[in-house]
C-alpha cells in the first residue's frame, strides 16, 4: 500500500498539470501525476513530425474514416491527418449539447500542450479589475500585482519569444528575442500607428516558441509543424519542458491510462484524502492517497471530477455548496475579421516558416474609449505572399498557370479577432447520468452560448478589422463574419471560479476549494472572467502561484 501514498496528486498532465508536477516535485514533494489517456514520449512519440509532405498519404487531409471517429472535431480545422492521433475519439467520449458546444480535447500525456496555439499574453490590470468596476459576476480575488511575479516565473522557464512594447493594455514580460515581422506586416503596423496616432498597435505575436536554447531544448527551427510535436523541443509543452524538469527531481511518478473518477473526501477532517482512479485499459479501480490534490484536468473535466466527488455530502459534488460549480462557462468568441491584398513589395519575400503571427492588443473600452458593450478584443493575423494554392484569374489551366504558380503571388494581410466573453450564471455544464461514455461514466451536458454583449462586440470586431486594414492601404478588403459556438475558441474557462466569498465562489484566492482546502484547482476552471488574450500563460502562472502556496501551507501544517 505504501506506493499508493504520495505527498501530492496532480490530475491531468496538460499545461496546468505539467506545471503543478514541476513546481511541487522541485519543492521536494513526492508527486503522482495522473493522465487519463496514453503516454506520448517526447520526440520518439511524434511519429509524423519529421515526415515530408509527400510522406503523409492524404497530404494532411482527413479521410472519411477519421471524420466518422471525430464528429465534433471536424467542426473546425485543428485536427488534420498528421496529428489525428492527438485528438480524442469523440465517439468514445460523448457529451450532450443542450445548446451547441464545441469541445476539442486531447486525452494523452501532455494534453493540449502538444497542439496548443502557443500565443502567450499577460492579462493587464484592467482585466483583473473589470468585474468589480462594472458590477459583473464577482470580483477577482487577485490583481495584476499578485500575478506579475508568477508571470515572470513561468515566462522565464517556458521561453516566450516577444517584443517589449511598454503598453499598459498588454504588459511586457520576460521574453526571448522577438521573431521578425514580414515586410508587409511592418508596413501595415506603421500605417496603423500613424493613422490612429499611436492609440492602436500591431506587434509581433508573443509565442511559446523559444528563440534561445533552453535546457534540453533547441531554439525554434521555423518549421511551423508545432502541432505534430517538436523534435527540437522548441515550443513549450509538458513533454518538452515541465515533465523533464519534474522527472529530473526523482520525485515524480507518472501514471497514464488513469481516469480520475472522484476526489475522495473525509467529511470529519473536511479534507480530501486522495483520488479514485479507473484504469482506462483494464477498467480496474484503485485508490491513491495524498496530502494535497491539484485538479488540472482541463476546465470541464475538472468540473466533472468535482461533480462526481463527495456526493454523499453535497449531491451536486465537491465545491457545489456555493451553487456555482459548473456555472459561468466562458470561452473566447472569434471567427470574425477581415483580409485583403497589399500592393507592391514584389521584390521582397521571407525565409522560413514562422510559427507565429502578429497581434493587435485590445484598444476598445480602454483609455477613455467607450462602446455600447463591455470589454474588448484583440486581433491575430499575418501578412504573407500567396502561394501555389491561389486562384489565378487571368489564366485557366496549363503551362501559363503552372509558370505563374511557381512564383509567390501578391502580398496579403488578414486579421481575426478574439473577444472577451462575459461570465453568466446561466451558462453551465451539468452531469447527464443517463448518457455514459466508453468507460460507463456519466457525461457532461453543455448549456451555454454568447449573449448580447458579445454580439454587439462582434460587429466592432468585423468593422474595425476592415477599417484598420483600409486605413493601412490594404486593397480589396473583405470582412469575414462567421458563426461561432461556445467552446470553439478552445479556451474553455469558468465552472469553478475563484472568489472572496464561499457563498458565491468555488475556490478561494489561492485556488483552494472552499470546502476542501487541500484541493487546488488551477486550470481554466478557476477563471472569474476571460480577458480577451489567450489564457494558457495565466493558467501557468496561477498553477505556479498555487503550488507555492500549497507547499508553504504544508510546511505550516495548516492544510
Amino acid at each position: 500500500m505504501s506506493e499508493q501514498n504520495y505527498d501530492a496528486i496532480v490530475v491531468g498532465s496538460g499545461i496546468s498539470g505539467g506545471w503543478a508536477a514541476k513546481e511541487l516535485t522541485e519543492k521536494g514533494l513526492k508527486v503522482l501525476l495522473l493522465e487519463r489517456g496514453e503516454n506520448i514520449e517526447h520526440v520518439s512519440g511524434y511519429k509524423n513530425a519529421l515526415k515530408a509532405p509527400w510522406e503523409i498519404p492524404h497530404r494532411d487531409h482527413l479521410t472519411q474514416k477519421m471524420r466518422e471517429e471525430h464528429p465534433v472535431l471536424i467542426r473546425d480545422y485543428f485536427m488534420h491527418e498528421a496529428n489525428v492521433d492527438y485528438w480524442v475519439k469523440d465517439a468514445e467520449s460523448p457529451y450532450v449539447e443542450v445548446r451547441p458546444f464545441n469541445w476539442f480535447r486531447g486525452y494523452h500525456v501532455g494534453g493540449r500542450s502538444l497542439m496548443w496555439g502557443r500565443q502567450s499574453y499577460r492579462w493587464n490590470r484592467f482585466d483583473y479589475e473589470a468585474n468589480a468596476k462594472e458590477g459583473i459576476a464577482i470580483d477577482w480575488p487577485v490583481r495584476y500585482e499578485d500575478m506579475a511575479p508568477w508571470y515572470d516565473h513561468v515566462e522565464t522557464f517556458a521561453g516566450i519569444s516577444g517584443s517589449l512594447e511598454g503598453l499598459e493594455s498588454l504588459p511586457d514580460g520576460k521574453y526571448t528575442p522577438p521573431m521578425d515581422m514580414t515586410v508587409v506586416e511592418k508596413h501595415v503596423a506603421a500605417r496603423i500607428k500613424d493613422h490612429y496616432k499611436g492609440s492602436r498597435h500591431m506587434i509581433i505575436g508573443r509565442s511559446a516558441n523559444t528563440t534561445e536554447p533552453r535546457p534540453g531544448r533547441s531554439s525554434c527551427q521555423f518549421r511551423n509543424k508545432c502541432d505534430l510535436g517538436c523534435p527540437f523541443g522548441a515550443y513549450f509543452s509538458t513533454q518538452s519542458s515541465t515533465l523533464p524538469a519534474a522527472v529530473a527531481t526523482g520525485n515524480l511518478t507518472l501514471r497514464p491510462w488513469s481516469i480520475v473518477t472522484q476526489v475522495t473526501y473525509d467529511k470529519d477532517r473536511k479534507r480530501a484524502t486522495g483520488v479514485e482512479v479507473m484504469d482506462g485499459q483494464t477498467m480496474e479501480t484503485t485508490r491513491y492517497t495524498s496530502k494535497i490534490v491539484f485538479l488540472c484536468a482541463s476546465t470541464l473535466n475538472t468540473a466533472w471530477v468535482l461533480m462526481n466527488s463527495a456526493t454523499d455530502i453535497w449531491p451536486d459534488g465537491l465545491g457545489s455548496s456555493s451553487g456555482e460549480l459548473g456555472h459561468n462557462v466562458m470561452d473566447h468568441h472569434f471567427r470574425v475579421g477581415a483580409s485583403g491584398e497589399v500592393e507592391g513589395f514584389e521584390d521582397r519575400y521571407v525565409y522560413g516558416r514562422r510559427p507565429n503571427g502578429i497581434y493587435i492588443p485590445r484598444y476598445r473600452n480602454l483609455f477613455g474609449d467607450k462602446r455600447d458593450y463591455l470589454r474588448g478584443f484583440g486581433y491575430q493575423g499575418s501578412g504573407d505572399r500567396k502561394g501555389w494554392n491561389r486562384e489565378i484569374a487571368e489564366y485557366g489551366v496549363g503551362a501559363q498557370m503552372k509558370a505563374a504558380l511557381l512564383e509567390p503571388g501578391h502580398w496579403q494581410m488578414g486579421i481575426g479577432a478574439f473577444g472577451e466573453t462575459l461570465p453568466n450564471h446561466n451558462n453551465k455544464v451539468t452531469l447527464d447520468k443517463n448518457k455514459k461514455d466508453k468507460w460507463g461514466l456519466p457525461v457532461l451536458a453543455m448549456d451555454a452560448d454568447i449573449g448580447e454583449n458579445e454580439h454587439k462586440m462582434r460587429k466592432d470586431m468585423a468593422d474595425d478589422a476592415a477599417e484598420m486594414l483600409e486605413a493601412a492601404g490594404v486593397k480589396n478588403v473583405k470582412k469575414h463574419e462567421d458563426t461561432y459556438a461556445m467552446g470553439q475558441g478552445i479556451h474553455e474557462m469558468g465552472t469553478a471560479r475563484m472568489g472572496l466569498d464561499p457563498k458565491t465562489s468555488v475556490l478561494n484566492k489561492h485556488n483552494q476549494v472552499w470546502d476542501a482546502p487541500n484541493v487546488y484547482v488551477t486550470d481554466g476552471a478557476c477563471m472569474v472572467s476571460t480577458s480577451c488574450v489567450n489564457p494558457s500563460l495565466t493558467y501557468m502562472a496561477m498553477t505556479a502561484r498555487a503550488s507555492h502556496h500549497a507547499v508553504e501551507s504544508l510546511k505550516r501544517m495548516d492544510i
Partner: protein
Amino acid sequence: MSTEPMHLINRREAVRRIALIMGTAMVASDVILRGASVGVKDLPAFTDADKALLDEIGETIIPTTDIPGAKATGIGPFMAMFVTDCYNQKEHATFSDGLGKIDAESKRRFGKGFVDATPEQRLVLCNDLDKEQRRFHDSKPKGEQEHYFRMMKELTLMGYFSSEIGCTQAVSYIEVPGAWHGDVPFKKGDKEWY
C-alpha cells in the same frame, strides 16, 4: 457546415494555412472542410482506365515544362486514392460522373476519348471546363459542393505541389529552415516556399 474561409484565420498555424484565409485561394477550405456527411460508400472503385484518364487531366492542368508535370507525380492514382478515402458519397459520385462527362465531351468535339485527344485538344477542352467551373463556383450557394472540374483542379494542384517532385523541383520545401527572416530580397525565378 459553413465553408467561409474565415475559420482559417487562426493562431494555431498562422502561416501554414495563411493562404486559406483569403477568399482567393484555389485549394480552398472546401478541401480542408470537406462535406461532413459520412457513411459507407457503395460506389465502384476507380479502374486503371479511370486513373489513366485522371493522369492526362492532371497533366493538362499542370503539364511538363522544363520541370516535370503532374503525370510524373502519379497524379491519376493519387486523385483516385484521395477521392476514394476522403470524399463523401455525393462528392465521390460527382467526381466520377465528371470523368465520364469529360470523356463524352471529348468524343463529341474531337471524335475520340480524352486520352486519345491531342494535348492541344485536351487543353482547349479543360480551359472551357475551367471557365464553366468558375461560373459555377461564383454563383453557387454557400456550402454547395463544387463543380467536378474544380475538384479535379484542386486535387491536381494539391497533389502536385505536395509531391516529392513538386516540393523539390516546383517549389522549395526545406524540412528544417533553422531561421526566420521576414524581409529578404526576391528576384524573378526564385522559388516559393512550401
